[in-house]
């Protein structure tokens, strides 16, 4: 078993999280204990990249100190030790989202996972994978359905797939408050729809989309369902089997893990029928000079030397989340999310995107400051040690729909206190006076 230190804050605490517990959790995150521009760092950009607990950092170090070698090949002891942690991580992640280990494919990140799918569908459209892969094939007349709130990662790979296959890309529009117009989706989905791909939780609006409603709709028309779970798996309990989606993607670096690793989940029978995307070593059974036979999933999608230290570190990250309890994390961030929105709505000249205070949202809020560009807002906050995201958050079409070019986003995680949110709100209240746009 890997020698990985137990988080100092070992919790298993009953009841909801509170600021006292979060203060203990923060001790596990070395990076949070620093001054930025003369102020204690207030990190509110976890929606982009989350921070790592010591156990994650140590796991990656332990790999390089004790186990570094290639997996699934080599008869030596180190190769076995590397393979062991690599596959153990798959089991840990699979259990975390309630699926089987062979249904978890490692990728670089969620973006790559979505590209893998789109290119595998492309290959199927060219006839690769034979009759078994026909259900993934697209042709002119077919449709791919996404939503207007998608991150570019869940939009552009489908645009490109549409260009390559002649299929049409359609999208479910959003309301002014950012909710999906479900009644429109009934009209948009049909027997022509081959793929429905949508985000579980919006990285801009914070809304949680009704997976059950959308999935049922897709099932009625025989469309495959792809779930972008980047903003849900890190922040709420997610049971992919119960959600009954065909594919799902998420990224390690948004869930306390390292960069360089992400996940594609796919139902076994689908993954095993899907032609591979990246090809090469470690994903084959027999190879001749003319052709090759491929291993079953997940290996058929993991060509070449893999991200082994990252898998081991992601294992530690998932364990950290499990120990804290995802239902407790979700409840805490819901509280922080409401505190963010309630506070922002009190400040004059601020428009919060997505649901208003009191309505369900995850622990993030994107907002526009009247008369001040988001880049200036971000600069002003950074001067006080507060890290937020500015720009279009990789969702240009959504911003355009809401009549904006860019916004500022604060996103929380299990290591943020209510004091972090309050410090942020105090600072935001100073933005318009500083830039001289207060009435």
């Amino acid at each position, binding site marked *: 078993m890997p020698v990985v230190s137990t988080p100092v804050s070992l919790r298993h605490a009953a009841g909801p999280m509170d600021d006292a517990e979060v203060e203990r959790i923060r001790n596990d995150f070395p990076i949070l204990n620093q001054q930025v521009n003369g102020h204690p760092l207030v990190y509110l950009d976890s929606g982009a990249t989350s921070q790592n607990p010591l156990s994650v950092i140590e796991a990656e170090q332990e790999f390089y100190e004790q186990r570094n070698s290639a997996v699934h090949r080599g008869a030596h002891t180190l190769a076995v030790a590397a393979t062991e942690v690599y596959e153990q991580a798959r089991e840990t992640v699979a259990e975390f989202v309630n699926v089987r280990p062979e249904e978890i494919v490692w990728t670089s990140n969620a973006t790559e996972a979505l590209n893998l799918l789109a290119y595998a569908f492309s290959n199927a459209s060219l006839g690769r994978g034979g009759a078994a892969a026909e259900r993934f094939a697209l042709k002119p007349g077919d449709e791919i359905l996404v939503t207007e709130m998608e991150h570019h990662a869940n939009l552009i790979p489908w645009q490109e797939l549409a260009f390559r296959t002649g299929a049409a890309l359609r999208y479910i529009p959003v309301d002014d408050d950012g909710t999906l117009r479900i009644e429109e989706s009934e009209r948009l989905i049909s027997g022509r729809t081959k793929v429905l791909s949508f985000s579980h939780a919006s990285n801009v609006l914070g809304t949680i989309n009704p997976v059950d409603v959308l999935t049922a709709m897709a099932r009625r028309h025989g469309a495959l369902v792809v779930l972008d779970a980047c903003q849900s798996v890190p922040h709420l309990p997610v049971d992919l089997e119960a959600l009954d989606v065909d594919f799902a993607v998420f990224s390690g670096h948004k869930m306390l893990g390292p960069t360089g690793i992400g996940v594609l989940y796919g139902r076994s029978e689908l993954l095993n029928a899907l032609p591979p995307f990246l090809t090469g070593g470690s994903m084959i059974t027999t190879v001749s000079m003319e052709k090759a036979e491929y291993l079953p999933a997940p290996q058929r999608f993991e060509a070449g030397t893999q991200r082994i230290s990252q898998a081991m570190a992601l294992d530690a990250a998932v364990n950290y989340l499990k120990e804290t309890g995802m239902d407790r994390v979700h409840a805490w961030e819901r509280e922080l999310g409401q505190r963010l929105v309630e506070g922002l709505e009190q400040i004059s000249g601020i428009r919060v995107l997505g649901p208003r205070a009191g309505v369900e949202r995850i622990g993030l809020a994107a907002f526009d400051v009247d008369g001040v560009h988001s*880049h200036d807002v971000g600069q*002003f906050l950074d*001067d006080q040690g507060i890290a937020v995201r500015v*720009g*279009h958050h990789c969702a*240009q079409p959504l911003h355009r729909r809401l009549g904006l070019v*860019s916004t500022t986003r604060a996103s929380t995680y299990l290591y943020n206190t209510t004091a972090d949110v309050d410090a942020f709100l105090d600072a935001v209240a100073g933005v318009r006076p500083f830039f*001289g746009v207060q009435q």
Partner: protein
Amino acid sequence: MSSDLQQLYQQIILEHAKARHGDGLALVPFGARLGESHQLNPTCGDEITLRAVLDGSTVEGISWEGQGCSISMASASVLTDLMAGLPDGQALKLVGEFREVMRSRGSIEADEEVLGDAAAFSGVARYPARVKCAMLAWVALEEAVQAANRTASG
């Protein structure tokens, strides 16, 4: 807030960000030589379309439309005031000098005698992520002048 921030957002910058001299694309007089350039900063979405009208080798006037942060908009406004009436060679030389200050990470102080109000942007050089904001209109002018001169020679 810190003095660094006040150094970055000098009063003159905040005023220009609101006043926006040159904002609104001007109609081009008949027979005038025109150069136009569109610049986009994909990281933040800042955007500018800038027109330079040349008479002989003189930059007669600059007009632009765009959207972006206070640094990029103020920079376009300051540039409009600074460049009008200059010989094109001199205008391009000032762009070069401004660029040098911006890329210096704060080691080169702008010469107010030469760059006028644009010297107020010296503080931007210490924020590498913001240098592109300050440069946006200047790069556009450089391209617009070159485009106008190509029209002339072609």
